[in-house]
């Protein structure tokens, strides 16, 4: 009888496509917006994620997330280094600064000053140039997207000059840094040079980046650092989540995306529900005939659920496919959506949501079939 159910479903092509498109639309909305939301939230902590060498971040005790920078005294660095279990510790300077090209184009950049000697903090992926060239005078590294933003349409090239807060800077490397949440351009420079780009107070140490000694967990060493220095020390994973949590709790982003996702679910339920209801209403005599001919309620329920399952699977596949294509093509670097992706758990979660949409949408229709009086077939 499964064949009968499927032929009934595919036989009414307009409704079948309507049902599939309803599910696909809801799936697309939920997965696309879900992926964008996760991507955006991940971006808030992209600087932390990019510095993979450090598994501990040390900062002011009052720091709430990565963008609340209150500089530490320079003496805190050796104190952190002195804590047992710390393999190494390096400084990180973080600020934002206006940048200006020689032809007058201006923008805002995130400036990161990395350890002079080790250059820990520099993105691992260097597209052009060499990290050691950062030791040359006025040298900076800029991310690919930033370069394109400052010099649109031009080929990536080294040696371009720009002004960083009226200080001359020369590009010696082009990096593939993850996109930051609040800036379009990411500049890396050695620590001692980066602090000269902007007028600073007495203290310039934004963060101390550290690594736990082999055999020690980042969390336990971070606790030891906090205990001994009075500073806030967190594992990179914890700091990343603390930053994401701050944005979740203090911005309207989750509500905005959440509303779109909820809207997608409701639109899906409405479209699929109404279309399926119409489909059942138009085929009610056929269901009645099947019932009259001895098809039990259980098997009839199976037929309707099979029809719903096929609609759900095809619609989900279509919606997910379109969402996957979007994330594949629209998020290629150096585009504005670079780094956004579709995590497997968003796709899996949406499969559950789609299942619920189809079940809820079919509920009324299924009820109509179950309470159907088979004697309807005798009515003209």
């Amino acid at each position, binding site marked *: *009888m499964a*064949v*009968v159910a499927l*032929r*009934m479903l*595919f*036989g*009414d092509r307009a409704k079948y496509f309507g049902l599939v498109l309803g599910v696909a639309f809801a799936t697309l909305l939920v997965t696309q917006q879900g992926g964008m939301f996760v991507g955006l939230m991940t971006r808030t902590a992209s600087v932390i994620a990019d510095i993979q060498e450090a598994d501990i971040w040390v900062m002011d005790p009052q720091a709430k997330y990565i963008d609340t920078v209150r500089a530490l005294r320079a003496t805190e660095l050796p104190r952190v280094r002195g804590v047992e279990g710390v393999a190494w510790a390096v400084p990180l300077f973080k600020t934002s600064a206006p940048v200006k090209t020689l032809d007058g184009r201006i923008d805002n950049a995130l400036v990161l000053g990395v350890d002079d000697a080790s250059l820990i903090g520099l993105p691992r992926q260097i597209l052009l140039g060499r990290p050691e060239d950062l030791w040359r005078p006025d040298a900076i590294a800029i991310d690919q997207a930033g370069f394109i933003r400052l010099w649109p349409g031009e080929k990536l090239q080294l040696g371009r000059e720009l002004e960083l807060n009226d200080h001359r800077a020369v590009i010696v490397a082009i990096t593939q840094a993850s996109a930051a949440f609040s800036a379009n351009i990411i500049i890396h420079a050695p620590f001692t040079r980066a602090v000269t780009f902007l007028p600073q107070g007495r203290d310039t140490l934004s963060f101390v980046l550290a690594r736990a000694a082999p055999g020690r967990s980042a969390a336990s060493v971070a606790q030891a650092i906090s205990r001994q220095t009075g500073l806030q020390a967190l594992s990179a994973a914890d700091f990343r989540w603390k930053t994401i949590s701050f944005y979740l709790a203090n911005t309207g982003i989750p509500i905005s995306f959440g509303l779109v996702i909820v809207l997608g679910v409701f639109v899906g339920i409405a479209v699929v529900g109404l279309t399926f209801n119409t489909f059942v209403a138009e085929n009610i*005599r*056929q269901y*009645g*005939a*099947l*019932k*009259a*001919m*001895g*098809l*039990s*309620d259980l*098997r009839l329920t199976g037929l309707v659920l099979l029809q719903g399952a096929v609609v759900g699977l095809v619609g989900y596949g279509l919606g997910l496919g379109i969402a996957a294509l979007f994330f594949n093509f629209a998020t290629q670097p150096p585009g504005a959506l670079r780094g956004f992706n579709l995590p497997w758990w968003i796709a899996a979660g949406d499969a559950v949501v789609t299942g619920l949409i189809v079940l809820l949408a079919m509920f009324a229709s299924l009820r109509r079939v179950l309470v159907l*009086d*088979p*004697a309807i*077939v*005798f*009515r*003209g």
Partner: protein
Amino acid sequence: MSLAVTCRDVVKGFGSGDARVMALRGVTLDVRAGEMTLLVGPSGCGKTTLISAIAAMLTPDSGDITVFGENLRKMPRRKVTAFRGGTVGFVFQQYNLLPALTCVENASIPLRVLGRPAGEANRRATELLDRLGLAEHRHRFPAELSGGQQQRVAIARALVHDPRLVVCDEPTASLDAANGQAAMALLRELAIKPGRAVIVVTHDERIFRFADRIAHMADGHIETVSDLEAAAA
């Protein structure tokens, strides 16, 4: 001659209070096996309600209906559906063929409902369609057939599982005279066998000649039952 169906003081009403309508007011009727019985009467007299009850699609408020020895009132609900699927064949006024299925697939449905394999069901349906003159239309869809041809597919569907009771509701109402006569002739030829019975609800006097007996209904009860010599016999 044995009895296929017996109805005793069958009462059925719809609605409640002042709006309650009594469709059957104590119907007593015997339908003999091996015969075609026509139920005739004016609209609203209870014909459709009576065949719905006989076909186990409706439970009477009181009275007993026995079909081939099975008292429907005493039959557990879960058995009623299976009983209907195995014992009763239906021909509807509107044919009620599934538009997305071919003639063979439509005709094979009762066997599929009974759980028979697709191959066996299709083979049996094909045999019947061939006997009904639809050999070349087997794989066409209902929309591609005339009304008479669709009704013949419906007859094949009603007979494919060899039911003991065939219930027809206005089987000629949507057909012209020639097609109506042809459909009834086929029904008589294929469905009337020893130990089997056909009940036809109709307004169409032109098909009275195919009946063995005609039960006249009025106002929810059987007024008269007349024995006829079936012209097609």
